[in-house]
C-alpha cells in the first residue's frame, strides 16, 4: 500500500541520529518557551532559525515543528500551577487546572494535560497523514463571511464559559471587544483610540493583557489575602492521574483532539479557539456543568487536547497549499523558502521525504514530550512549595521581563500593569477574566471579517445568509443564544448562577 511505503520513508528519515537530535532540541526548547510567560514559539523559531542553515531542510523543519507543539505542552504547566498562562491557548486551562492545583491535585492535572496532549497530537498526526489534501480544500471554502459567522458563534459559546452571572461575563466580553478596537482599523487604516502612541497602532497586545489580567492581578490578589498557609501545607498526593481521572478524561481528550484538529486547519488563532470551544462542549456534555471552574478534570483534558491537535491541523494548509495559518506557521513557511523549498501544492510530491519525515517526527516528538514531561511533574509541583514571599515577586519579575523582552516597549509593560490593577479590581467584584481575553482574541478578527464581507458584497448584509456555511454557523449561534430562554435549561442556569455567586472567590 502506498501509505505504508510513505510511512516507511518517514521512519527512515526520522531515525537518522541528527534528525532525532534536532527533534529533541526542538521539543525541549518548545516546552521551555511554552512555560516562560511572554516568550512564544514564534520568537523561539525565529531565534533558532539561523542555526538551521547548516543542516538539511528536513532536519530544520523537524526541529522547528517540534518547538511549535512543544510550546503547547509547556504552556499548560504554569497555567495549572500558578494561574498564569504561558500561551494564549492555555488561558482556558487556568480555569479548572489551577483550581485542581489548589486542591492539591496539581499532579493529576499536569499528568492529564500531558497525556491529553499526546493523544491529541497522535490524532492530529494521523489526520495529517490520511486526509491532508481534501481537508485543505475545506479550509479554502472559508471566506470572510464564514469567518465572521464562526467568530459570532465563538462569542455565543463564550456565554457557556461563564460559571457565574451571564451578565457579568457579557460585560467583560464587550469590554474585551472594545479594547480590541484600539489600533489601526483594518480597512481604512485610521487610528482609533491610540492616543498618539505608535505602539498601540497594532492594538493592545494579547501577551501584556494576559500577563496583566492573570499574572499581575493574581499576585496582587494573593498578596492581599495574606498568604493562605493551608495551600502550601496540603501534601500533594497522587502525582499521577488516578483511574477515575482517566475514565473521566478519555472522551474529552478524544473529542478535543478531533475538534482541535479541524479547527486548526482554519487560518487564525486556532489553538485558542479550539481550546475554549472544547471547554464549552465538555461543559455542555457534562452531568455536572456547575462544577466547571472548580476543578473538573474534563476542563483540563479537553482544552489541552484541543490546543495540541490544533497545532497539527495548522500544518495542513502549510504543506498542501503553502498558506500559513498563523504567525508561527508563517515563520516556518519563511524557513522553507530560505532553505530553497517551494511551498505550495507540489510540496508533498516534490519533497516526500520532507513531508513524511516531519509527520513521523511529530509522533516521535509527541512521545519524547510525554516522557520528558511526566517525571518533571514531580519537580514542578515542588515549585508550589516555594514560600509565597519569594514565589510571587519572582512571578512578577518573569512577567515584567517577559513582556518587555517581546518588543522592548515600555508602553506594553505599562499596559500590563494597568491590566493587572484592572484584573485585581475585577476579581473583587467577581468578574471573570476569560471572557475578556477571548473577546480580545476574537473581536478584531470578527470586525475585520465583517467589514471585509460587506466590502465584497458591496454593502449587502445578505451575504451572511446566502453562503451556506455562514448561514449554518449563524443558525447555531442563534440556537445557543435562545436556549437559556427555554425553561428547562434556563432553570439549570439560574441554579448554577446561585451556586457560584454564593461562593467566595
Amino acid at each position, binding site marked *: 500500500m502506498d501509505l505504508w511505503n510513505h510511512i516507511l520513508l518517514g521512519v527512515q528519515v526520522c531515525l537518522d541520529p541528527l534528525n532525532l537530535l534536532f527533534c529533541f532540541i526542538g521539543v525541549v526548547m518548545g516546552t521551555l518557551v511554552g512555560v516562560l510567560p511572554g516568550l512564544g514559539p514564534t520568537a523561539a523559531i525565529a531565534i533558532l532559525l539561523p542555526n538551521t542553515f547548516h543542516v538539511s531542510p528536513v532536519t530544520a523543519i523537524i526541529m522547528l515543528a517540534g518547538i511549535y507543539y512543544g510550546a503547547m505542552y509547556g504552556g499548560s504547566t504554569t497555567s495549572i500551577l500558578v494561574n498564569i498562562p504561558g500561551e494564549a491557548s492555555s488561558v482556558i486551562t487556568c480555569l479548572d487546572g489551577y483550581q485542581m492545583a489548589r486542591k492539591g491535585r496539581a499532579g493529576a492535572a499536569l499528568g492529564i494535560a500531558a497525556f491529553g496532549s499526546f493523544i491529541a497530537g497522535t490524532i492530529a498526526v494521523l489526520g495529517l497523514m490520511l486526509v491532508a489534501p481534501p481537508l485543505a480544500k475545506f479550509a479554502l471554502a472559508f*471566506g470572510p463571511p464564514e469567518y465572521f459567522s464562526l467568530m459570532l458563534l465563538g462569542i455565543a459559546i463564550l456565554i457557556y464559559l461563564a460559571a457565574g452571572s451571564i451578565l457579568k461575563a457579557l460585560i467583560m466580553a464587550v469590554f474585551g471587544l472594545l479594547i480590541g478596537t484600539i489600533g489601526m482599523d483594518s480597512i481604512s*487604516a485610521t487610528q482609533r483610540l491610540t492616543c498618539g502612541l505608535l505602539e498601540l*497602532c497594532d492594538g493592545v497586545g494579547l501577551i501584556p493583557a494576559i500577563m496583566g489580567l492573570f499574572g499581575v492581578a493574581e499576585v496582587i490578589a494573593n498578596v492581599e489575602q495574606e498568604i493562605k498557609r493551608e495551600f502550601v501545607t496540603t501534601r500533594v498526593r497522587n502525582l499521577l492521574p488516578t483511574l477515575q481521572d482517566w475514565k473521566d478524561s478519555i472522551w474529552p481528550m478524544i473529542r478535543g483532539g478531533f475538534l482541535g484538529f479541524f479547527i486548526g486547519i482554519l487560518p487564525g488563532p486556532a489553538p485558542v479557539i479550539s481550546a475554549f470551544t472544547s471547554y464549552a462542549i465538555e461543559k455542555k456534555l457534562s452531568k455536572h456543568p456547575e462544577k466547571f471552574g472548580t476543578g473538573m478534570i474534563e476542563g483540563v483534558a479537553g482544552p489541552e487536547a484541543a490546543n495540541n491537535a490544533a497545532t497539527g491541523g495548522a500544518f495542513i494548509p502549510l504543506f498542501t497549499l503553502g498558506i*500559513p495559518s498563523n504567525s508561527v506557521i508563517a515563520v516556518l513557511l519563511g524557513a522553507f523558502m*530560505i532553505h530553497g523549498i517551494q511551498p505550495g501544492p507540489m510540496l508533498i510530491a516534490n519533497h516526500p521525504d520532507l513531508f513524511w519525515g516531519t509527520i513521523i517526527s511529530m509522533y516521535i516528538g509527541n512521545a519524547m514530550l510525554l516522557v520528558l514531561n511526566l517525571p518533571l511533574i514531580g519537580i514542578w509541583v515542588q515549585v508550589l512549595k516555594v514560600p509565597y514571599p519569594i514565589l510571587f515577586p519572582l512571578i512578577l519579575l518573569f512577567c515584567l521581563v517577559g513582556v518587555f523582552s517581546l518588543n522592548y516597549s515600555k508602553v506594553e509593560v505599562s499596559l500590563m500593569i494597568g491590566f493587572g490593577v484592572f484584573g485585581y479590581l475585577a476579581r473583587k467584584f467577581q468578574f471573570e477574566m476569560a471572557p475578556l481575553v477571548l473577546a480580545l482574541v476574537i473581536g478584531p478578527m470578527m470586525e*475585520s471579517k465583517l467589514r471585509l464581507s460587506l*466590502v465584497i458584497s458591496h454593502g449587502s448584509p445578505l451575504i451572511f445568509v446566502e453562503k451556506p456555511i455562514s448561514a449554518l454557523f449563524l443558525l447555531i449561534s442563534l440556537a445557543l443564544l435562545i436556549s437559556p430562554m427555554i425553561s428547562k435549561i434556563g432553570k439549570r442556569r439560574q441554579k448554577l448562577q446561585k451556586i457560584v455567586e454564593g461562593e467566595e472567590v
Partner: protein
Amino acid sequence: MNRWKVVGLTAAISFLLIVSAGAQNFPTGPIAYMNPFNPGGEVDIAARAMQPYLEKAFAQPFVINYLPGAGGALCWSKLAAAKPDGYTIGGFSIPHIILQPIFMKDVAYKSDDFVIFSIVEYTPIGLAVKKDSPVNTFKEFVEYTKANPGKINCGGVGKFTGHHFATLQYMKLSGAKVNYVTFQGTSEVQTALLGGHIDAAFTNSTLLVTSRDQIKVLAVGSPQRMSQLKDIPTFEELGFKMYPRIARGAMGPKAIPKDIQKVIEKAFLDTTSQPDFKVKMEKAGFVPQVMGIAESHKFLEAEAVTIKQLAKDFDLK
C-alpha cells in the same frame, strides 16, 4: 613651550588616526538589523538569505531583530532616531516609506531621513484572477471590469501600500472601476483568491509563483518578463505603462558618516552579486537587484514621483 607643542601635535595626530581608524575598523562589533515586519515575511526571507554572506563581509555577527508594528512605521520611526554609527540598520519597503509619512498620523520619520545602502530585491506586483473566473487574458479582464464598474472585487494588502496603488494605477490607465478589498496580509489575499472569495488581486510575484497552478496569472509589473513566469506578459507589453512593485533592502539613519556608509554598501553589493544568492531569491519568486547607494536613491525618487502623482489623481487623503 616646546613640550606643549609636542603634546598638542601628538594629540592632533592621534585624533586624526582614531577618527580614520574608526572607519577603517568598522565594524568592531555586531551589526543589528531591524526588521519592520514579522518573521517569515519577505523582508525576513531576504535578510536571512543575506545573513551568511554579510557576516563574512563584515567579519562580525549580523543580528536580525524584529520590531513590527503599524505596518512598519514603528521600526522606521525608531530607526530614523537611532544612533548614526552604522551599527543599527534596518530593512525597508518602497513604497511604504514614501506613503506612510504622507498618509499616516503620528509617524515620526520621513523617507529622506535615511540613507539607503542597497535595494536588494523587488517583487513585481502582478494581476491574478481566481481559477473559475470568466476571463482568461488581461484584455478580457479590462473589458470585464469596464463592463461591470465597481462590481469586481480586487484584493490587496492594506491601504496606502504597493498593492493599493497598483490597483489605482490600473484604474487610471484603463478607465475601469474596481472594488478594492483590503486584507491584512498576503496570506489572507492568497486564501481569499484561491477560495474564490474575491475575483482578482494585484499581488506580489512571490504569491503568483507559488500558487501558479491554482489561479490564473494575467500580467506582471516588471520591466521585462520574469524568468519564473516566462509565459506571463508584462503590463508594458499589454500597453499599460505601469511597473508596480515593492522594493526592499537595507537602510540606516542619514547621519551615518560617509566612509562607514561605503563599508556597509560594499558588504551588501558583495552579497547581492553572489550568483547562488541570486538563484535562491529567484526560486522564491523575487527579482534580485544589485544597487548601491546612488542607484537606490534614484529609484526611490522616481517611485516617489509616480506615487505622489497617483495620490493627487485619486484625491487620496
